[in-house]
């Protein structure tokens, strides 16, 4: 069994945070969170976890490290949260460093282990509460911490300024008019059916996704709008950092921006974690039982458009593809059948990964792990050999990946393991195949 102490990774966010800790402060903060923010759920988990180890094979880290028990879900919980609870917070700053590294970078909060635990213990929840404690101790990896700062300051993940957002929409609208002369990206159109929301990397790095979405909306004749003011970004690194205060603030901005425009529902791009933050985490912190404005993931939205015959394609994608099931919308929303119907509608041949659907392995980028940046890239690469093997076994070259995080994660894995594959969003494929006006 390896030990977390032997694989300590240098990160300024963790190091600086730990440097200003004292045992007294740790004890105080740990107990504050345990008493103030956790309750029966965590207590029962700790007490009834039978230490049976059945959850181990649920975790891709464990599978990828040749069954190294250090990576089993129960061990991660034991070395972090259960230790904090047993010792009532009497642990050293150095231990906090290691706990933070484990919680932030060696667990994707993917909840796959939930399919393996007979008791029904939610290790993802336990690890997010460890993160919460680390955040309250100010011990958070640098890069993800920075994105949470951006969220709190601009209500988006990438320090996009208010004008830059509008400008990039208008720029994409302009570009798209070369191809679809009467295309519009309607800003602030009150009463539209659909509020289309994206994550900040789209205006920042992946503007073609906005272009494609606009093209699809246009071709399908959807009555939609995009907001010009903050709230447009549904992504949420505050949630993964443990900064629940600003997770709540972000989600308020998001929901209120949709409520103000009096739309029927929010449709979001192909992103997984944002979906989780809107329908599961952020709404709860705000006191809403469900998302106060219904949220529809792109997979489901495309599925609807296809059902209604609103997406017309000229031909099917000829090369065989495989499908990456993003945790947050499979285990998170049960969209596996709709995803398959969409992909089968678009593509000639689908070769499934095994296991798949809600039993898929996480991309290892999720839960904010990819957002922890370059220092932890190896953690993700070595921690997901199983995904590389899964991908390789399909023998195909194209992977349909309806999630931003999975994209980043799989592209890295494909590169690292030299798999010669390529990831595609559903939007990429629809755009490529759809009927376009003859110019």
């Amino acid at each position, binding site marked *: 069994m390896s030990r977390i102490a032997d694989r300590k990774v240098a990160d300024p966010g963790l190091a600086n945070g730990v440097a200003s800790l004292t045992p007294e402060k740790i004890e105080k903060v740990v107990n504050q969170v345990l008493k103030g923010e956790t*309750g029966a759920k965590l207590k029962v988990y700790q*007490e009834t976890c*039978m230490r049976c*180890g059945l959850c181990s094979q649920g975790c891709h880290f464990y599978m990828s490290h040749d069954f190294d028990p250090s990576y089993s879900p129960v*061990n991660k919980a*034991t070395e972090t949260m259960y230790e904090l609870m047993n010792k009532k917070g009497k642990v050293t700053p150095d231990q906090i460093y290691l706990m933070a590294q484990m919680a932030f970078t060696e667990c994707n909060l993917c909840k796959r282990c939930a*399919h393996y635990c*007979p008791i029904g213990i939610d290790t993802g929840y336990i690890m997010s509460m460890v993160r919460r404690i680390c955040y309250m101790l100010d011990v958070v990896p640098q890069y993800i911490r920075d994105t949470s700062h951006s969220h709190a300051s601009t209500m988006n993940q990438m320090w996009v300024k208010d004008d830059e957002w509008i400008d990039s929409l208008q720029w994409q609208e302009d570009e798209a008019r070369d191809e679809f002369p009467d295309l519009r990206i309607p800003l602030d159109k009150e009463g539209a059916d659909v509020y289309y929301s994206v994550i900040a990397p789209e205006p920042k790095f992946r503007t073609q996704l906005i272009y494609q979405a606009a093209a699809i909306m246009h071709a399908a004749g959807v009555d939609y709008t995009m907001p010009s003011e903050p709230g447009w970004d549904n992504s949420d690194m505050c949630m993964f950092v443990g900064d629940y205060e600003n997770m709540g603030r972000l989600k308020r901005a998001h929901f209120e921006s949709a409520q103000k425009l009096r739309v029927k529902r929010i449709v979001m791009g192909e992103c997984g974690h944002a979906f989780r933050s809107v329908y599961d985490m952020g709404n*709860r912190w705000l006191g809403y039982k469900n998302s106060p404005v219904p949220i529809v993931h792109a997979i489901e939205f495309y599925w609807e458009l296809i059902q209604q015959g609103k997406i017309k394609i000229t031909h099917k994608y000829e090369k065989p593809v495989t499908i990456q099931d993003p945790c947050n919308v499979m285990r998170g929303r049960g969209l596996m059948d709709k995803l398959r119907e969409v992909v089968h509608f678009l593509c000639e041949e689908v070769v499934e990964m095994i296991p798949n659907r809600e039993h898929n392995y996480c991309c290892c980028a999720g839960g904010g792990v990819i957002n922890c940046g370059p220092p932890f890239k190896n953690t993700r690469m070595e921690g997901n050999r199983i995904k590389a093997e899964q991908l390789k076994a399909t023998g195909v070259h194209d992977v349909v990946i309806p999630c931003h995080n999975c994209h980043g994660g799989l592209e890295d894995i494909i590169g690292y393991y030299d798999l010669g594959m390529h990831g595609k969003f559903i939007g990429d494929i629809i755009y490529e195949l759809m009927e376009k006006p003859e110019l």
Partner: protein
Amino acid sequence: MTEFYVFVSGPLAWIAWGFFIIGSIYRLVSMYALAKAKDGSSLAYMSLPYSLRSILNWLIPFNTMGWKSDPLMTVATFLFHIGFLLVAVFLGAHAVLWDTAFGISIPSLPGGFGDAVSFVVIAACAVFAYRRLALPHVKGVTRPKDWFSLILVALPFVTGVLAYHQVGPVLLMTTLHVLAGELLLALIPFTRLSHALFALLTRSYMGSEFGAVRHAKDW
């Protein structure tokens, strides 16, 4: 010795039952109060149909990812839990006790069968012990608490079998057995074995979250 046996099988038995029942009620009620105070955003999602769906699916051997991943454990734990219930409640000797103590008459296992089941349960405990000693991912997270509850559970079976087969002084063995049984009963609410109280609830909660919120199965 006989006096001691009388004490153990009389007043002490009532005390053990008292601990078990009052302790269980206390644990459940106080946990519920804590959940109400602190876990409102979890309690709100409890759903009976999805709870039952989850429990049922986990009651089927090899039906879940967890059960499939470790066949030896799956067989052992199913035999153990079923065997435990059968023996603890329906063993011939115990059925008599239900009758004398509470005036309830219940069907009882045929002697040979009860005996066989007891051996199976002991074997299952041996599998549990083997896992804790030999499998790194179990060994690594095993703490004295876990051994304690395993021994606590195994003891009545071992002593019971010894008494039944008249190995060693019968009265002593029977006394020890009754003591072990009472100890187990009394400590269920306060050890890992409290999962007997909580496991259905944690399972229900997971089933509800997965079913009602996540629209996915939790097995």
